[in-house]
């Protein structure tokens, strides 16, 4: 793989939910090479503050463009949200190892919590021409920050939504909704692809264990280099060893992750 490093032109940068943006960037190398679940490492500006790059899942690709979705949570994403169309953003990528699409079961359930929606449009796109069903479970705190559900629905898959305050869809956690639907539909032979807060992934790991489902999750850690050099973004696996989210992941088999490590 040929890792790209350089300026990418901003094609669009729209607020799609409260404080949540979708940015489309022009870069054929990344658009053509990106695998579902991989990420790009973005430097939001030339200034020394904030200093480090920020990792973002590749949300989707379209021709020579790729997209990221992000929530404004700090200085870096604030600057990114103010970046105008036509400006260039410094991007390194694609990086990391994504979801193992060649190991999936007949049915795939996507479980996304909050900004965990980020990698899944590209995942669904790559699963389009196969037999077997794809269902998506999208959770958010409330409807104002629920993004990506209608975008996935427009790709022709069944989408279930859950909000913690009940303002949209199921009232409760997305993992509880998943269990309900799995049982109601008597779905067997399911692979779970997940991304979201640690607590969500933790309960999902339990569900996968009880129901004997294959499950993979995209993890997040503070990251410096993004390429496996600094050994900063360590996560402990069941074998007792540390792996790097940036290089060995960000996608790991959920049953291999130690959540309290």
């Amino acid at each position, binding site marked *: 793989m040929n890792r790209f490093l350089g300026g990418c032109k901003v094609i669009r940068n729209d607020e799609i939910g409260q404080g949540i943006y979708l940015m489309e960037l022009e870069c054929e190398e990344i658009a053509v090479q990106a695998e579902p679940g991989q990420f790009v490492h973005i430097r939001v500006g030339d200034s020394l503050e904030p200093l480090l790059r920020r990792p973002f899942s590749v949300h989707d690709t379209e021709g020579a463009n790729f997209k990221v979705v992000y929530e404004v949570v700090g200085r870096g994403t604030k600057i990114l949200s103010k970046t105008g169309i036509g400006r260039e953003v410094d991007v390194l990528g694609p990086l990391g190892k994504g979801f193992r699409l060649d190991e999936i079961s007949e049915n795939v359930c996507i479980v996304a919590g909050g900004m965990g929606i980020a990698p899944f449009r590209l995942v669904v796109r790559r699963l389009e021409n196969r037999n077997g069903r794809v269902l998506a479970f999208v959770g958010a705190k409330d409807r104002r920050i629920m993004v990506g559900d209608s975008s996935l629905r427009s790709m022709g898959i069944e989408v279930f939504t859950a909000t913690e305050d009940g303002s949209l869809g199921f009232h409760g956690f997305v993992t509880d909704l998943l269990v309900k639907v799995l049982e109601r539909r008597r779905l067997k032979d399911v692979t779970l692809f997940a991304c979201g807060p640690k607590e969500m992934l933790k309960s999902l790991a339990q569900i996968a264990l009880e129901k004997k489902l294959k499950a993979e999750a995209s993890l997040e850690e503070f*990251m410096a280099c993004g390429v496996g050099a600094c050994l900063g973004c360590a996560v402990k696996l069941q074998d007792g060893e540390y792996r790097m989210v940036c290089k060995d992941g960000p996608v790991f088999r959920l049953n291999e992750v130690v959540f309290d490590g």
Partner: protein
Amino acid sequence: MVDLTVDFGRLVLRNPVMNASGTYGGEEYVHHVPIDSLGAFVTKTVTREPRQGNPPPRIYETPCGMLNSIGLENMGVRRFISELLPRLASSEAKIIVSIGGNSVSEYSDVAGILSDEEAVDGLELNLSCPNVKEGGLQFGKEPKIAHRVVSAVRKATSLFVTAKLSSHSDLPEVARACRDAGCDSVTLINTLPGMAVDIVKRRSWLGNITGGLSGPAIRPVAVYWVYRITGELKIPAIGVGGIMKSEDAVEFMIAGASAIQIGTGNFVDPTAPLSVIDGIVSYCERGRIDRLSDLVGSLNLEKFPDRN
């Protein structure tokens, strides 16, 4: 043509730019920076036995800098020699192995083992490790202990040796001890101790509670120590701390650094070593400096003519 050669006696570099220890594992950056283009490649700190490293989180970003508490995760010197070193061996760049330990004998053992390897051109002693047998104080904090480590290493190897030191009030005395014990150079400076707190959870942002601060935030401290130590002790220094671009590298050299290392800067701009080398050349050409060594320590200390 500007002569970029750096002559440390036991080690001669084609150019003054290295990566800082801990920032290149092996070949992660070869897409952007061929190892051959560096004056020297500095490895992550290697210890006698493998080390698992510290619990996460290991990284936290701070104003113009970052904290890390990696905990010297490494495969141990034996696996380093069999797995990583052969891949670096064919490079035009000099290979400097950073070594660490918890006792004086661990430093000298590792130095001795590496000394037998033809591919190794020099050693950098990471003296910020705790001296476990004697109260846990860092080797680089006390002149007597630093002297013992360097002497033991000097007995074990004839390779180029530089001691990497952090900023503290006894640094001049420690640097003097390192020089007297046979160091060829000092690397100034290692990360500064630091921490940051998550005020919502009332927890440190780092799994190890405290860490080391690097990046542009520490550059003035590093430049200060390069200026003071090279001025007072007449020992060559390798400058490191927050170098992002060539102007920063030139600043260190004017202050007295014979060579420089880029650390955190690699994470921000992976091509930094190349642009720093190019920028140093342009600076010298513009200033009609034929030999880079003429720039080293060229700080003008005359009074400002327009001030009293």
